[in-house]
């Protein structure tokens, strides 16, 4: 079982955070999570976070929405109930475009948002695991998981030498807020 013990280091500046993370990684310590009050540029590269595949999901869903919308309109006016509007063609492609476009956008947007929520494991009532309440304010935090008691002193030392201004030991189950 993975331990529920973490050592956290707090930085007050995003530049310090980036250089600090590199130093920690150079010492061969793997980082559990980084919490920041806003998206820090360059953090993805340092942490080797893969580029999200959400854009692909959005494209597929959007294409699906568009095809479905167009096919449905085509089916309605050529198969299900063809109506003669003043001798105009049954399959009047230009007038099907607006609805096709709107549904493509709708499908893509909804799938992006829900894809984002599901992939990130967040949503209404999701449990909140907070290492430090200041990370949504002005603290940049690095959390390192402790698997073995003997590592504690080493990790603490590495964090301090990597410029972390506050190093603490936390067990987030105690600060977890179940809703």
């Amino acid at each position, binding site marked *: 079982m993975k331990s529920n013990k973490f050592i956290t280091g707090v930085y007050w500046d995003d530049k310090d955070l980036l250089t600090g993370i590199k130093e920690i990684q150079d010492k061969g310590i793997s980082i559990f999570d*980084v919490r920041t009050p806003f*998206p820090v540029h360059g953090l993805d590269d340092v942490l080797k976070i893969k580029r999200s595949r*959400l854009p692909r999901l959005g494209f597929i869903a959007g294409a699906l929405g568009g095809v479905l919308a167009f096919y*449905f309109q085509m089916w309605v006016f050529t198969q299900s109930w063809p109506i003669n509007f003043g001798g105009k063609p049954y399959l009047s492609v230009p007038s099907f475009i607006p609805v096709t476009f*709107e549904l493509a956008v709708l499908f893509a947007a909804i799938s992006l948002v829900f894809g984002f929520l599901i992939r990130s494991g967040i949503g209404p009532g999701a449990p*909140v695991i907070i290492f430090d309440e200041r990370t*949504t304010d002005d603290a940049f935090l690095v959390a390192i998981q402790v698997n073995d008691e003997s590592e504690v002193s080493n990790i603490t030392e590495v964090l301090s030498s990597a410029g972390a201004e506050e190093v603490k030991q936390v067990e987030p189950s105690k600060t977890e*807020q179940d809703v």
Partner: protein
Amino acid sequence: MYVSPLREPLVTGAKSYKDVTDDITKPMEGKPGKLWYVGLATALLALGFGGFAIYVTVWEGIGSWGLNRTIGWGWGITNFVWWVGIGHAGTFISAILLLFRQKWRTSINRSAEAMTIFAVMCAGLFPLLHMGRLPLGFFVFPYPNTRDLWVNFNSPLLWDVFAISTYFTVSLLFWYMGLIPDIASIRDRLKDGIRKQIYTVLSFGWTGSARHWSRHESMSLILAGLAAPLVLSVHSIVSMDFATSVIPGWHTTIFPPYFVAGAVFSGFAMVLTLMIITRKALNLENYITVGHVESMNKVIIATGSIVGIAYLTELFMAWYSGVVYERYAFVNRAFGPYWWAYWIMMTCNVITPQLFWFKKIRRNLAATFVISIFVNIGMWFERFVIIVTSLHRDFLPSSWAMYSPTWVEVGVYIGTFGLFFTMFFLFIRFFPVIAISEIKSVLKSSGENFIKKGGRNEK
């Protein structure tokens, strides 16, 4: 980071990251001021009056409005188009300006997006009420009904149904996803209590994890990419309600771009009207600076000039096309019985915004406030002119008529103001008016404090 000295800071005063959170969440903590209660009460009163007018409309039928056989669309559709237009600034700021990397949008995008959502809610009411009997609203959706009939996909009115409902849904999702990190900021500031529990649920469990931010950023960018053509499509489709008909004065190909420019024009005016008051009331002058107001005024003058050119093009084409009906429609607009509406429109939309060429006026808050209200009035009259003056003298002189609204129509319009402002007052009380995390992300490149200190945050 080098920042040109010519570039004004977007955040003035010596603000650290912590100050940003404190300043923006401050109005939400503690008791609201007297002014807020007075504002909310007034808005609720207007909403109540509107509710009564809606009751009369539904109970007595659409006959309680001033419409007649010649003029089938009056204030109802005027208000619909006006409200949809108001909403366009929010999406323009949050989507198109994001794609263009305009950093000044971060101070105003959240509240402008909120206005979009409230304005579309107000707009949506009018077509529904215009059906007279509310259950008829069901029949605009293509579902397998008992009569086996489908809706007419060739009709712009149906495109509107899809455009407006997609626009509302996407705007709402975009707005709320952007709000999650800020709600988390509030959650973490609150001590235990019912408010903390509510914000915990609303924050969706956001923690600011690097992985989440990475995904959040790529989602926001794609959503912006989707919302940008969407906002252009919405008012284009609204304009096709008119442009695809054969009424002289409506049947013009210039309508879609002209309506989109007009929508952004009126939307920015509404954002300015409200933000000039809000920044003062909530002490946010350091975040919504005179520089922000100036930037918005530049958008106003650009879109206002496009609208002005569109008016002149319409007049030119009415003469150049040689169509007598078309020409009569425009002569009648300017010099017929509704001449006053036409000239109010021309003055407010074409002449007053040109004052913004002067830097002194562009940077003057009082002048901006007055002109923004002029623009709002002018854009309302634009829709009134297009709808009523084009309809009231049709092909048959025997059916020419005049139109004036009854108190019921006026009441419904006042009611939508009530709805809009009720929502807005609740929004500024319970949610941060400015996107906290987005301000922090531009603070180093654009905050006065950071520029001086060479880009360092010090605790």
